[in-house]
């Protein structure tokens, strides 16, 4: 570490002196202005596709075919939303998806926190390192490459066309990027000072109490971040549901409904392209005829699907910034 720091300092000291000079002149607001400029610039890159999506979702077929209409629709064409709503079966699908995501996410965050704690705080016991590397290995094997065997596995268990394959592995530290969440918690717990644990032990706390009452509250930012990622990734997941729920479209989550709707709309508007893999399975939606200008409806459906996680994030993001309490140690 020391050698790297020396190297960094060698490069950075002139920069630092320049910064100090700026501060001495009292021109800190210039730095702030530059920071704002960069933030606004980056925000623009993120904001543009979102704005495009929302604005297009309000365009009528006439607007979409009219080349003189730019970004702004001439009028708010709400029919896109009513159409997308009915095609997605939004009310019922939303309920299903929220229930499924909640069950999966709570299990995944709890179990991976537990396992990550074990990997972080007991790393000196022989064999733990190898087990952890095994966990990391499962992280880099994409589910797509082992889907045939996974499918057979669930078939033997009789779990096909149910939500078990999408929720039960989550309670055992698996599921979508489960090993990554274990890794998040291992890093977070590993950064907590040893003296904390020791003090709790001296006071007679059991291992479980040290984990649950002392350590877990201190990694709250990591819990929040794991929770958010898990929610979003489960919400948007189409691969596992399309393989394990298959054509039981009555229990499809929103992600799959959106994929199906999009495939339908695109294949109907363009006779040359074949329907998507999931598109041909649902009979009751195939009767709907869509035209080339159904693009607005696709965008409306997309907005409807990503709106819930967006609202959820806005509500939970304050936890990120609360930071941790002081650890109560005198260093």
């Amino acid at each position, binding site marked *: *570490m020391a050698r790297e*720091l020396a190297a960094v300092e060698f490069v*950075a000291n002139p920069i630092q002196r320049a910064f100090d000079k700026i501060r001495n002149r009292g021109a800190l607001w210039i730095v702030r202005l530059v920071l704002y400029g960069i933030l606004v610039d980056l925000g623009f890159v993120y904001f543009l596709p979102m704005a495009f999506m929302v604005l297009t979702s309000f365009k009528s077929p006439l607007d979409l075919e009219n080349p003189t209409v730019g970004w702004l629709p001439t009028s708010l064409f709400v029919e896109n939303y009513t159409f997308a709503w009915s095609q997605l079966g939004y009310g019922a699908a939303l309920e299903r998806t929220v229930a499924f995501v909640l069950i999966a996410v709570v299990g995944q965050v709890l179990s991976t926190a537990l396992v990550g704690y*074990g990997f972080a705080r*007991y790393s000196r016991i022989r064999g733990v390192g190898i087990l952890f590397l095994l966990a990391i290995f499962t992280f880099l094997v994409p589910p797509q490459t082992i889907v045939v065997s996974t499918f057979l596995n669930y078939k033997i268990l009789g779990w096909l066309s149910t939500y078990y394959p999408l929720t039960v592995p989550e309670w055992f530290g698996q599921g979508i990027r489960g090993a990554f969440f274990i890794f998040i918690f291992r*890093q977070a717990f590993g950064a907590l000072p040893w003296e904390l644990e020791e003090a709790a032990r001296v006071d007679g706390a059991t291992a479980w109490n040290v984990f649950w009452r002392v350590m877990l509250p201190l990694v709250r930012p990591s819990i929040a971040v794991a929770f958010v990622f898990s929610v979003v990734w489960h919400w948007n997941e189409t691969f596992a549901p399309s393989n394990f729920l298959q054509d039981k479209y009555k229990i499809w989550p929103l992600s799959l409904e959106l994929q199906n709707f999009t495939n339908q709309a695109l294949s109907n508007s363009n006779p040359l392209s074949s329907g998507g893999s999931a598109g041909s399975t649902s009979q009751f939606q195939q009767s709907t005829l869509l035209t080339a200008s159904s693009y607005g409806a696709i965008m409306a459906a997309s907005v409807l699907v990503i709106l819930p996680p967006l609202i959820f994030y806005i509500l939970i993001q304050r936890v990120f910034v609360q*930071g941790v309490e002081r650890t109560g140690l005198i260093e």
Partner: protein
Amino acid sequence: MRATLRAMPGMKLRAARPKGALHRRRVLELAFFITPWIIGFVAFQAYPLLQSLQISVSTLKFTSKGGVSWLWVGLANYSNALFVDAHFVPYLVQAIVSTFIEMPLILVFALTAAIMMKQGLWGTTFFRGLFFLPVVIGSSAVMAQLLGAGGVPVIVQGSFLEPIFHVVGPTIGNDILGVFQDMSLVLWRSGVQVLLFLAGLFGISPTYYEVARIDGASAWQTFLKVTLPCLSPMVLLVTVYTLVDSFTNPLTNPVLGYIQSQGLSGSLNLGLAGAMGWMYFVVIFIILAGIFKYAQTHVYYAGER
């Protein structure tokens, strides 16, 4: 005298036994914490992994009754992938090179963005919301829609880039656009990293900063001596995530798509696809192992001793 002689072995025993018992207790505690994962691994991961390993040393044969069976072919699939297949190795090299070009960009950008957002500038809540957009949109089919619907027109039309496009003409304009396109893709793929760094930054105890301030450290020194060491576990995490994400992203990585096309093509060459997959994982794993080896001596865990 006799008493002391008798007591001494006893004392030794008492000194030795708690150590063994303590170790045993810690192993039990460890078992309690990681058992869920072991169960999950054995139940849901081990069998598919082992079977794909078996497939990679076999070839699929359709029997006369319409069934299928696996024929053991040894390492033939592996040598075919390495020496016969014209695309696998170049794709692999391309994936590794592009990953190592992108990774530093993403890391530096994500860390900078996270630090900027921690400064408490006016409107950071808004920016934090904005930086979440790539996470929620990027992981969905919507992203594919947007990019498939022509990411470039979306970015050019009506934006500040349009005049540039008209002035320099389409030839150079397309090059410039390509750069912007690449850059915005890099930015789009760093949403997760920004949030991870942000969580890491807020996880650093304020006590350290207080001490640094009292000791008269400058902002830069504080960054170097407090923020970076405390953040180093998070840097390792973000590095590994970026690497794996880049290697396993079916949208941007040529290797995975190629492997899947081998397995699902008319020849249904699942054995070859399996062999390619395993070699690919092993290559990524070796790179990861190197990173972990380096991290062992360069990442600071306060809880380690």
